[in-house]
């Protein structure tokens, strides 16, 4: 018998907004943080990725061709599990091309949007194939098949930009929410709440609403910094991107609320950062494509909300995907994440009073 009153949710939301509004430091960081992160991740990481990113799908045979490709200095060779992974990454512009080795043939996937690089890859593949043929002492025949895909020429900034949006929102909402809930407890206000008509569901929803307004402000600022300041394209509808970010923010909030039960002080909340934030940065598939993450770790990637938010934001900003195109799996996964931790957060609120 849960009664939910929109009015009481609004009362909590208003209070949260009033408190956030007074938090000068957080407000100041709204614009500052994305700039710093863009510079940090965009420029600093782009140095490493200067070579040609080449995917390699090895289904057997052609050892000479493989070692030839791997020996080329300018190539960053990424081992991939299947041809469809390779296709996806090339068409997303995250790989410049891919070579698929099969016992009877070699297929080269190339990105039509950067012909120069495509040419270099093709040349390398063909000279590798010649070596292979010489080794086998077979009559040379042309077993290299070329396929062009339409990817787009991306810069590091472009792949990083959408993820920074997600990261900034997730990080700040998570930390702020966890600290707010810790304070509700240490201030004794939680105990007072519990003895009022406000239900736990209303309280958490009030927080979600209040923080959402904050998220909106924060993500709009980040969007402006990323698109205007760092020239990351915005091919889709900005409102779709904001929807994704709001859903991500709501997830971060309930996660923060839930985890606040395991911290005794604000100081301890900070200790969650390596546990909660760092894996998401590493495993969300922005800096390294998901397909290149070792298979036994990959399930973790698929449990992290930033993975889906990053994917959805990339799709909206770079490919111009619409809302319906990102429902599955991204919006769905973010919704499930939110619901799970919403339930956990409200349940824990009760338990910790007893």
């Amino acid at each position: 018998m849960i009664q939910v009153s929109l009015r009481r949710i609004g009362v909590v939301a208003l209070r949260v907004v009033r408190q956030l509004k007074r938090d000068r430091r957080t407000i100041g960081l709204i614009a500052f943080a994305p700039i710093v992160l863009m510079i940090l991740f965009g420029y600093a990481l782009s140095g490493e990725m200067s070579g040609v990113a080449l995917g390699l799908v090895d289904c057997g045979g052609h050892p000479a061709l493989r070692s030839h490709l791997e020996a080329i200095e300018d190539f960053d060779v990424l081992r991939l599990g299947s041809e469809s992974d390779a296709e996806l990454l090339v068409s997303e512009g995250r790989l410049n091309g891919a070579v698929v080795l099969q016992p009877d043939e070699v297929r080269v996937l190339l990105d039509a949007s950067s012909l120069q690089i495509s040419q270099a890859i093709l040349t390398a593949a063909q000279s590798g194939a010649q070596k292979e043929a010489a080794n086998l002492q077979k009559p040379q025949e042309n077993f290299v098949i070329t396929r062009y895909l339409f990817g787009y020429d991306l810069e590091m900034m472009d792949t990083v930009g959408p993820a920074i949006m997600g990261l900034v929102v997730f990080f700040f909402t998570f930390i702020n929410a966890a600290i707010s809930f810790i304070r509700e407890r240490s201030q004794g206000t939680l105990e007072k709440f519990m003895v009022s008509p406000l239900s736990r569901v209303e309280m958490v929803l009030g927080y979600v609403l209040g923080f959402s307004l904050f998220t909106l402000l924060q993500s709009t600022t980040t969007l402006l910094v990323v698109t205007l300041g760092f020239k990351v394209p915005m091919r889709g509808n900005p409102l779709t991107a904001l929807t994704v970010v709001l859903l991500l923010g709501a997830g971060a909030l309930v996660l923060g609320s839930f985890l606040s039960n395991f911290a005794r002080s604000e100081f301890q909340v900070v200790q969650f950062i390596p546990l909660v934030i760092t894996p998401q940065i590493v495993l969300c598939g922005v800096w390294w494509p998901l397909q290149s993450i070792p298979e036994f770790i990959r399930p973790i990637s698929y449990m992290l909300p930033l993975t889906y938010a990053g994917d959805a934001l990339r799709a909206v900003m770079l490919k111009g995907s619409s809302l319906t195109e990102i429902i599955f799996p991204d919006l769905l996964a973010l919704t499930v994440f939110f619901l799970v931790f919403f339930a956990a957060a409200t349940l824990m609120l009760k338990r910790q009073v007893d």
Partner: protein
Amino acid sequence: MASDESGPVVSARGVVKSFGQLRVLDSLTLDIPRGVTYCLLGPNGSGKTTLIRAIVGLLKIDGGDLNVLGMPVSRVQQIYSKIGYMTQHKALYPDLTLQENLEFFAGLYGIGKQEREQRIVELLRMVNLQDLRNRLAGTLSGGMYQRLSLACTLIHEPELLLLDEPTVGVDPRLRQTFWKYFERLTSDGRTVLITTHLMDEAEKCRIVGYMKAGKMTAVGSPDDIKRQAGLKPHLELWLKDPEKDCARLRAEGYEIEILDGVVSLRLESHEQIKSVLEIVSPIDMRLKEPMLEEAFLQLSEAA
């Protein structure tokens, strides 16, 4: 407001609550009638706060019967709008202004805007903070904070008020204002349960319950309590001829002590003063009523 029956507002029968090995409420029984100020006294750690938290349903009791406003405590959530609970420790938002704090708590109870404004003005006047309504609560002094906390508790005009040491750090003049306000509330049929360590406050309550180690060891009006503790008023006499007068009083069966030339005589009742004056005619005299404090010191040693 007045909801139904005339039965007790809070009634506890054999209530038990333990924290691990520690039995904090030990088959506690008490009744709080409607429309009174009920003072809960007892040494630190005797379980007063625990009892209040059990009454508002924050703690699940391990055994016994506990009814609040005619409702079993397991369903007390349904009547939270009729209960005002002021916690022993601060429970306000330091980063909100006084006005915003009050607005927030009013909002939780769904009080309309107009009524809310009116109540805020009235309560801020009562706690004498009307000039500070736009200050951040975190910048208030300790006593002011306590006063704001009381105002926030009263904002929805609860039928049952549970105040856990509401006057700690509040200056004497304001404490007097508080007590006048409490009297007004009880004359409206509301009930106030209050804990305090200040005996002069306990004296002002209709009923005083003394709690020790999770049990009610004495309950009654302040006068009742003194009687239970066996405390009697004393008459102090300044006599012309102490030796002779004392002998005469002793002969009549009065208990007498002489301290620094002042004769102190234990009375069974106030009526005895007349008969004492028939025996002796003192230069001066003073009636010393027993202090509630002494009663409790005795009771806590006895129990």
